[in-house]
């Protein structure tokens, strides 16, 4: 696996983070070192091993289809200045 500038920039773009030149120079060797070290996971034989997505057995957590309390419109909108006419405002979609 080649962790290079191109890959790093691609990953950053997917994550919607813009890295400046200084950050790229700093992060690139760091992430290389980390991923090389983590690659040693491949030494472990996991054939026929089921993944454990949670550390303890959990299943069938569901709720009944009963209505609960909503937030008031004012409360819902209270944590941002980006709002208009009871709508949230967001950046343009294209």
């Amino acid at each position, binding site marked *: *696996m080649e962790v290079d500038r191109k*890959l*790093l920039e691609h*990953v*950053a773009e*997917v*994550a*919607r*983070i*813009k*890295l400046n030149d200084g*950050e790229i120079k*700093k*992060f690139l060797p*760091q*992430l290389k*070192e*980390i*991923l090389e*070290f*983590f*690659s*040693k*996971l*491949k030494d*472990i034989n*996991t054939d026929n*091993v*089921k*993944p*454990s*997505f*949670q*550390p*303890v057995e*959990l299943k069938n*957590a569901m*709720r009944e289809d009963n209505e609960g309390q909503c*937030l008031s419109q004012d*409360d819902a909108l*209270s*944590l*941002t*200045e*980006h709002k208009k006419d009871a709508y*949230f*405002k*967001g*950046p*343009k*979609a*294209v």
Partner: protein
Amino acid sequence: MESVHDFIKKVKNGEIDIVEHTYKLIEECKEINKEYNYLNTISEELALNSASEIKIQVKQNKNIKNKKLLGVAVSAKDAICVRDVETTAGSKILQSYRPLFDAFVIQRVKEEGAIIIGKTSQDEFGFGGFSVNVGKGFKIPKNPFDSERSCGGSSGGAAGLTQKLSSHIALGESTGGSIVEPASFCGVYGLCPTYGRVSRYGLIDFSNSMDKIGSMGKTIEDAALLMNVISGYDKKDSTSLNIKNDDYEKYLKKSVKGMKIGIIKEAFGAGVDREAENNVCPGIEELEEEGAKAEEISLELPIKYGIATYYMIAASEASTNLAKFCGMRYGAVEKLEGSFNEYFTKVRSNNFGDEAKRRIMLGTFARMAGYRDAFYLKAMKVRTLMINEYKKAFKKFDALISPTASILPPKFEDIEKLTPLQHYMIDIMTVSPNVAGLPHLNVPVGFEKNLPIGMLLIADHLQEGKLIQLGSAIEKGK
């Protein structure tokens, strides 16, 4: 030292004026904070309101009889939502976020009459072991025994405040060791429960399959008391365990005679600071004197592969959890202009700190098509093997022992020299029990060069009681 039980008695019978006491406590917090930066927010208004209410209740002798935490000061790690109190998880991107709801644990401690005094400092979103990875504009908390040194992390503020503030219990949170490791660096007890034992409702997510809220106290009694209040089923958290509650306090003075403890062979020796080990051995002797039997056990997989497994799971989950922070609905905003891609990128680039960015990169990478099986999925499979290895050990042992930290609390200037990977490696003792969702406890066992040393006790799922039993036996022997 006055125990919390005695304190509550005095509040109930009016011997302590809780309002006066709270005023003093807040002053004390402010004073401590000047030097040590343990609190991101001091919730003065909330604390004084609660105190006034309790004072009235005490006067009228109403609703106070069974309150388990009446008047007790409780702090919450900044990642735990407290209604109307700024809750940032240590990140600039959440500055000014005042949750519209209380976390389950906050609701519980409020119900039991606790006074919430503030939000403790931490690594941004929990991303670190030294509390130096604080968000942009946040101050780094310092070790209570030496302010040139780290207090551990990521629940660093919680551990330091527990050591420094006269009477107080802390709500900490651990994803990979963030309760026990700072507890060890600050010389306090830190109890991290089984995954699912305490509801995560209202906890700002780091890694959903590993995050656990726990308790930190100056004594094992304090830690057990708080755990009694916060544990239990919560239907609002799908991963909350729907099982009968345990009473942790009943294990406090229980004899450890006949208990079997396994000393993790790989945790002593190569790669571990001799000084960090020193006081752990007398702690083990203490337990043996009390009638416990100690034996060595090899746990190769958790020690050798714990770090890689942990970081892959944690970063993968964290990178999705952090996607929601984009300058809409709450938290940091920028001027609303440009396309959504430009706007989200601006908000996120300007407001996340370096370690948050690194973890987002790592996690996004580990989830990408082509790498997903080799990293994300592989780590989830190794987790299965790790759990199996622990389960095998717990067939023989009631608890496993290692030093909590592989080093003494380091100086800030030395931390700066570490690469991120070296930084991650410091968590070597604590990540694996977290990957496996096992309860674990830090027990302060002494000092080396005037710095506290901690012993790590790990038990099987739902066996928090055994940890308390062993921990209190060591406490008694001191």
